[in-house]
């Protein structure tokens, strides 16, 4: 062939099979990572559409099953469906401005709920009001609440670092674009055919 360019890519750089492979694998990996991160945020947010309640876990009181930085999604249920053993989200009786996500250990005779964090040595001293239960935990989205947690704990270094890493991955997501762009040009020119195709590839 007279052309030094890739006959199929239409790229102006010399044809290089290794480079093509590196580009396509890098792009797929980068898209996979970025997409999975965005997907986690998606799954953390979308249940709110049907009225489920997402909460960011801020403390380790439910370790090791639920760790700080998780988003836990609770489904609202009537209090007659509450059972010992469930992880429930309820208004913190010790601090009404906050919610608490602990395991329901026992429904007391007066109807109040005895709760406890799995990692805590003792049960919560203040029982919970069954009317203040916001839901039963159903889904856990790992890591999706980390930005919230970092902001609350003023760990802005982590926040900036993660944002920078994510931003750095974005250009890699499309690093194989030249492969597709070239093909499109080739397809167009191949349909029209003739001597113009090489020119249009080089351009």
């Amino acid at each position, binding site marked *: 062939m007279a052309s030094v360019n890739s006959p199929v890519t239409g790229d102006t750089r010399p044809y290089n099979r290794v480079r093509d492979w590196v580009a396509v694998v890098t792009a797929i990996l980068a*898209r996979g990572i970025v997409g999975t991160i965005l997907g986690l945020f998606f799954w953390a947010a979308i249940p709110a559409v049907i009225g489920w309640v997402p909460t960011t876990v801020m403390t380790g009181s439910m370790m090791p099953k639920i760790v700080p930085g998780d988003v836990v999604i609770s489904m609202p249920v009537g209090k007659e469906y509450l059972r010992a053993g469930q992880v429930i989200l309820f208004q913190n009786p010790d601090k009404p401005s906050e919610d608490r996500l602990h395991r329901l250990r026992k429904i007391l005779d007066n109807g109040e709920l005895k709760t406890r964090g799995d990692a805590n040595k003792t049960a919560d001293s203040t029982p919970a009001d069954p009317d203040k239960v916001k839901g039963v935990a159903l889904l856990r989205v790992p890591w999706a609440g980390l930005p919230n947690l970092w902001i609350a704990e003023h760990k802005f270094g982590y926040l900036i670092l993660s944002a920078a890493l994510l931003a750095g991955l974005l250009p890699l997501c499309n690093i194989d674009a030249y492969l597709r762009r070239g093909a499109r040009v080739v397809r167009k020119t191949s349909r029209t055919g003739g001597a113009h195709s090489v020119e249009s590839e080089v351009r």
Partner: protein
Amino acid sequence: MSKASHAARKSRPQRISRFGVWLAVPAALVVSGVVVSAASYASFSSSTTNPTSNWNAGSVTLADDDSNSALFNASALKPGSTDSKCIVVTSTGNLPSNVKLYGTTPATTKAFSSYVNLTITQGTGSSFGSSTACNGFTPATTNSNVYTGTLANFGSTYTNFSNGADTWTPTGSATEARTYKFTYTVDPNTPNTSQSGTASLGFTWEAQNN
């Protein structure tokens, strides 16, 4: 070989690239969905608990120096009997917290606890083992009075963290200790109906991070 036939043939990286760009969004949703469902299954499928380990990333931790023995074990009390005892509570957590004091399992016979007056003061110095009553105790300069009233009232008023008596707020930046001085006095006007009555009450300090 014509140029057109060259152009029609795509290299494998090209084909993968074209395929991969359309696959990216559904694949990401599926992968993240699998992560979510696996994490949810692991977290909520079982109701077993982990009672003893303390995994807290940040923690609030309290300890006292009573070696699990009772503050008072007084018998043959009569109207006017009094005694003081100190207990040191130490906060070793690394989060700022709020410490509250409340009573557990109050019990009495012949309404005796209504005739035991209790004063709780917070400060520094002394220790549980101090031989003479609270030797070396210094009341705090502010908010030293935690409670003044009957034993019965303490047991019924302060039953858990949300209604507990305010004590102190450790900063979490270093180990902090507070001494609590408990003084009881049997009411001089205790009626005869309370003779040979008994009273007991547990005291619990609880810290919650704020």
